[in-house]
């Protein structure tokens, strides 16, 4: 890569949508330069620990990428390399598992790493097998930052890859659960993502018929607290949802609180402490045509919220998500649209609700893709229904998996 003259980096400003930009940059192979990252902040200018951790992860799964920070960390230059996956000798151990430790200051859920990783994995050269460990892995949804839970990633996001022809050998193992720790920081969870289906190009999709909700499923999880919390959450959620869909199953998962090394100065050496105590619920509604809508609520780390409120809140959130309409929810929209933009040089279509299309993430993704040289999206009203949904037409880039092409 260094032999060829690389194109000048595309310039962005601001700390927002950092991950999204890095992902698109890696997929398109265009270098980016992001400046003014929290340059106005007096207390913590520059990149935050979770962002740096993501950059590290990006460095391990690619070969030949270049990451440069400025002195203050407010400017970042990223030249993407080839996506190799967890190949032996590039950070993965002998069994091909790439271990990634998240720092204890991490405030984001592990889905913050999983979603971009799942987007990159189909285009890597070899299978991707990453184990997230350390004192910063939060598997639940995070009330402070709004990340979705690992269960939602597995049950609402990963099934979407099936319509793109990416379906084999994908697993997301939740080895240990954790809610956010005190002060929304850290957790002691453990999650392993195995993404073993690499493709040349994702299939072109036409997701136009959302269908009707036929079943609602979910997972209620309690970590280090009584299992009765699960039962109470499930009962409250079912109380709201059952009149609409009788086919509602919410499963319960109870686990003990994870132990992490105690990092405080007064602690004995080798002492451990419990972290990440709490409960939460993840709900997924599936339609007759395979559309998925999800909702996620978890208890805040400071407590004080009864499980009934959490369960009912999740149910209402799910109903709200469904009411927004379209084939994809706001949570899944960036994934679907990015995959469509990276697909074959063909027009794919997806129906989206107006409120979903108008979210900041989707709009910024559209702008970023334009900046990376992708063709613009076509929008038209889906005239046949009264909901006011919009059909988004996306032309694929037609380059796809570079590593796959060479191999």
């Amino acid at each position: 890569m260094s032999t060829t003259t690389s194109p000048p980096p595309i310039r962005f400003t601001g700390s927002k949508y950092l991950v999204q930009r890095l992902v698109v940059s890696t997929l398109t192979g265009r270098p980016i330069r992001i400046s003014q990252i929290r340059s106005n902040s007096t207390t913590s200018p520059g990149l935050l620990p979770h962002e740096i951790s993501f950059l590290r992860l990006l460095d391990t799964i690619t070969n030949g990428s270049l990451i440069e920070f400025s002195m203050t960390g407010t400017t970042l230059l990223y030249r993407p390399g080839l996506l190799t996956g967890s190949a032996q000798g590039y950070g993965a151990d002998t069994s091909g598992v790439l271990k990634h430790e998240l720092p204890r200051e991490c405030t984001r859920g592990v889905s913050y790493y999983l979603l971009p990783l799942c987007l990159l994995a189909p285009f890597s050269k070899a299978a991707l097998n990453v184990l997230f460990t350390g004192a910063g892995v939060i598997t639940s949804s995070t009330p402070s930052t709004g990340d979705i839970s690992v269960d939602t990633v597995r049950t609402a996001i990963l099934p979407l890859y099936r319509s793109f022809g990416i379906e084999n050998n994908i697993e997301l193992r939740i080895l240990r659960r954790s809610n956010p720790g005190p002060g929304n920081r850290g957790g002691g969870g453990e999650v392993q993502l195995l993404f073993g289906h690499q493709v040349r190009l994702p299939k072109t999709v036409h997701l136009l018929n959302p269908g009707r909700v036929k079943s609602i499923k979910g997972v209620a999880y309690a970590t280090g607290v009584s299992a009765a919390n699960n039962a109470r959450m499930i009962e409250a959620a079912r109380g709201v949802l059952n009149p609409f869909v009788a086919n509602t199953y919410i499963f319960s998962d109870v686990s003990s609180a994870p132990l992490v090394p105690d990092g405080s100065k007064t602690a004995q050496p080798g002492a451990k402490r419990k972290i990440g105590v709490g409960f939460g619920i993840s709900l997924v509604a599936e339609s007759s045509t395979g559309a998925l809508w999800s909702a996620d609520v978890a208890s805040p780390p400071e407590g004080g919220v009864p499980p009934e409120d959490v369960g009912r809140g999740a149910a209402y959130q799910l109903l709200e998500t469904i009411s927004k309409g379209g084939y994809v929810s706001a949570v899944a929209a960036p994934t679907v649209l990015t995959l469509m933009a990276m697909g074959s040089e063909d027009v794919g279509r997806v129906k989206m609700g107006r409120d979903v299309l108008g979210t900041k993430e989707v709009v910024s993704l559209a702008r970023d893709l334009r900046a990376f040289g992708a063709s613009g999206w076509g929008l038209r009203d889906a005239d046949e229904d009264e909901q006011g949904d919009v059909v988004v037409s996306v032309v694929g880039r037609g380059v796809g998996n570079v590593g796959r092409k060479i191999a």
Partner: protein
Amino acid sequence: MAVTLGKRKRVRRETGSKIETAPQDAPNDSDQEDLQATFRRHFEARFKPLADLAKPKEKPVDLVAEESTEEESEWDGISEDEEAPVEIIEHSTSADAASLLDKQAQKAFMSSKPPTSTPTSTARFKRPTSPTEADGEALNLKNDLALQRLLKESHLLDSTTDYTPSGSNRHKATDIRLQSLGSKSSIHVQEKMPMSHRRGITAKATSKEEQRRREAKENGIILERAVKVQKMAGGRRERGVGTPGVGKFRGGMLKLSKRDVASIEGPKKSMKGRRR
């Protein structure tokens, strides 16, 4: 009804001795003793021989007398209503099936793989085919298989009436069946043999083929196009990483043949016609 039954049983079990002592007041008729003996025999035939010999005289009587009266009364009831249609009420719900489905759904949903769309339980509502239909289907399949085999293996059969090949023909038939099932190689092909034998076999095969082609050509018969056997592409085999790419490495010594040296040196530039 059930409550009284349970109570009676318990009484019998706990205070067995009392009952045994009490009925001693009852009159001991000879025919009743006969009856006892009969029931006792019957009981012993069905269950274990009774351990206590002296005392349990009354016990089976007591038990059987009660049971017999009950049975009689019940039996009468049924026999009276023989004409009336029997009403069957099943109180079993499909809870078992539902819980089984629950388990399956939980397994499918809570596994580490992304869940597939909810499976529709068609298996439960599968209509059983009528037995005659199924039998006919099975018979048809069987006949079909037999016919297929006959067609394929008929050349192995000699003039005997038996349709099951025997001896070496049986082995050949097995081979054909295996290959039709997807076996890659015949069981008759010998894997290991001396090099000279193999060479001889291939030489014979090629000479035979050549002769056949030659004769056909002489007689003006057009044969199928000859399939050229591809030689192993590339002179060299795949070798281990880190071994030298040229020559033979034996006994810690790399031997280069003349050809190897020539290939390393490349084509010699002739200096004849060129000036410096």
